[in-house]
């Protein structure tokens, strides 16, 4: 059974670590979670980013957060990637599978997946 003692152990473990506050990472991944985003499947996409970023050991570098309306309902689920000194990348019609690819190629590899971006859809 899960016990509060395990949480106490997590607290102990965290004591020596610098805790990353939201937005302090080099890369910010923001998932649109307005009504339209949630209806279109934003929840599993958020999950995929939270889990993937941690499993790939990117937690120091990447923070994952949520926002409301991004203003492009027809393209939901929408995910924005912010990186210092770089232009914002807007990924559209996201799925957990595409999220895994974005983690691998973009967040890890530094290469934007142009095919999934809004720029491509509007071109």
């Amino acid at each position: 059974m899960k016990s509060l003692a395990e949480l106490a152990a997590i607290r102990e473990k965290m004591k020596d670590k610098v805790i990353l506050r939201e937005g302090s990472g080099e890369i910010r991944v923001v998932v649109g979670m307005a009504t339209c985003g949630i209806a279109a499947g934003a929840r599993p996409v958020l999950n995929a980013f939270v889990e993937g970023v941690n499993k790939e050991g990117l937690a120091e570098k990447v923070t994952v957060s949520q926002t409301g309306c991004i203003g492009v309902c027809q393209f939901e689920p929408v995910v924005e990637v912010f990186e210092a000194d770089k232009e914002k990348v807007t990924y559209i019609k996201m799925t957990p599978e595409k999220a895994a690819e974005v983690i691998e190629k973009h967040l890890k590899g530094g290469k934007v997946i142009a095919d999934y971006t809004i720029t491509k859809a509007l071109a």
Partner: protein
Amino acid sequence: MKELSLNILDIAQNSVKAGASLIEILLTETPETLTIRIVDNGCGMTAAQVESVMDPFFTTRTTRSVGLGVPLLKLAAEQTGGSVEIVSSAQAEDHGTAVTALFNKNHIDFTPLGDIISTVTALIQGAPGIDWQFVHSRGGDAVTLDTRELRAVLGDVPMDQYDVMQWIGEYLREGYAALPACE
């Protein structure tokens, strides 16, 4: 919405936006019904706002003029012969909102609850600084989670730390495994 747990995620986001410091998500099942209550201590609404919030052409947002969250919940409840009620106060002494939705589980148009654990973890991940109380009771038993209890142990470790989020997910999964499948 494909799952009622998605409506819950959406409606609870309204409570976050309303600046609540405590949000309760209370699910109660009988053999025939499911009652979903989302209670917050946020800024609340005036009587006139509550009245119009049920109407899809009301929203205080400016980016788009139509609020869909509450109407979608209402639709999901009413299509099972159930209903949605909103009680809210914008007074300084007792500000807050309670949204109560009643569903007839055995109705053919009942939407399944779906992945409620993902909804709870997504809410905590999105607003780790506020307190969440979750209670799902069924068959004389209940799955419960209260972030105030967790916080007492965690001290200043944020609730959205991955290890903590994983603990919460696992804890809820264990709770559901022990909960009777029905009344």
